[in-house]
């Protein structure tokens, strides 16, 4: 799950308040930096802001930093490359599951993964993917 997706998820968990409320609570004049992280596909958000958000949501700041590096764009590039080359990939999901297979399609919200072994198509929601890697050579 990218940082943007994760922050939206945390916001929903905390009652779904708007970003103005969060901005005021952490001492920002306006919510644009938060909106930017939530909406952009690239890695955005400076360390100071992440520290404030981590305190606000009571989560480890390292977690936010780690997710920042795993932006939607980064996953898109990986998925696109994997699909074009037909390589086997491993997707590690937030709930601890790992799925292995070949990506047959991907789009805004999900990835079509042809599972290794039974060839079954599993539709994996992008926001469920925490980490990804190539299974080649393993």
């Amino acid at each position: 799950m990218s940082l943007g997706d994760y922050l939206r998820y945390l916001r929903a968990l905390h009652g779904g308040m708007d970003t103005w409320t969060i901005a005021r609570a952490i001492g920002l004049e306006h919510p644009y930096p938060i909106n930017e992280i939530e909406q952009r596909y690239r890695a955005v958000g400076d360390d100071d802001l992440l520290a404030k958000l981590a305190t606000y949501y009571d989560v480890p700041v390292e977690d936010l930093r780690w997710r920042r590096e795993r932006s939607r764009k980064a996953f898109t590039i990986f998925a696109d490359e994997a699909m074009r080359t037909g390589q086997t990939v491993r997707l590690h999901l937030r709930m601890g599951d790992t799925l292995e297979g070949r990506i047959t399609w991907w789009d805004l919200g999900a990835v079509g993964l042809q599972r290794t072994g039974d060839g079954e198509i599993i539709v994996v929601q992008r926001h469920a993917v925490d980490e990804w890697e190539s299974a080649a050579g393993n």
Partner: protein
Amino acid sequence: MPEDLWKIRQRKKMSVADLSAKSGVPALSIQEYELGQVAIRAADLPKLAKALYVEEWDIKLLSEPIPTSRPRRPSRPRPSASPPRARKEKGSKKERRPPGPITEGQKVYLDRLLTKLDLSREDFEAKLGRSVESLTQEEAREQLKLLQEQVRERNQRARETQIAHILELGKKLEMDRPALEAEAGKPLTELSRREASRLLRDLQERLTAKQAATPKRKRAHLPEAVDEFEFNYLARQQEEGATLVFTLFDGSVFSGQIVGFSPYSITIREPGGDEVTLQKLAIAYYRRATGQGGE
């Protein structure tokens, strides 16, 4: 034999405004040159010579001022009996007052210009080879003009964004800063805006040529805003009446046939007949129920 600027101009039947328009030298500067207040600046001399169709050495750098009085025809004797007023002798030059020392105002202005040029009074005097106090008003005026010019030039230095852009283009052309400075003939920070923009144009042209020579890389189609693949998949499953199994983040599992779906949710009918709407944000993944085949 060099001549006064005004003499050449008048011979060419040009007004100061004409000469200014033709040479690009401000009319005020031309007037100052013609009045002999300052020497013609090195940068203006070729422009004036070109505009007047003469050689540079045909123009005196410091003109004698234009005589203000013209010889008059002898006038008829006036009928009045009043005694003739004393007149200046015709053709005589107005006696110029000996130049006074630099004024306080000039000193203040000089210091202000030196500050803008990051120069101390001492640096300036060392360059000048004499003290500021020893300057006459006229010399001070000349020095002030030169300093003004330098300030103007300095203000016209290349912008930081231009330098950053030059470095950026240089990187793409595999040229580091020393290479770019060698190309420019001076440090990048000393480029004027015009020089910087010329260099930028040149680098840009070279980059375009380089890019044209290299085969175009096929850009990956990254449909970040496309959600048709999942849409198509769900539509097909709904059409076929397939049973799908959904695994949620909390580990719970739901299965059923698709009744409808949107970008944010999927509604299914469970085997018992209940309809359940699953928010996509709660879903981790889903698949066709085992034994149903399909893609």
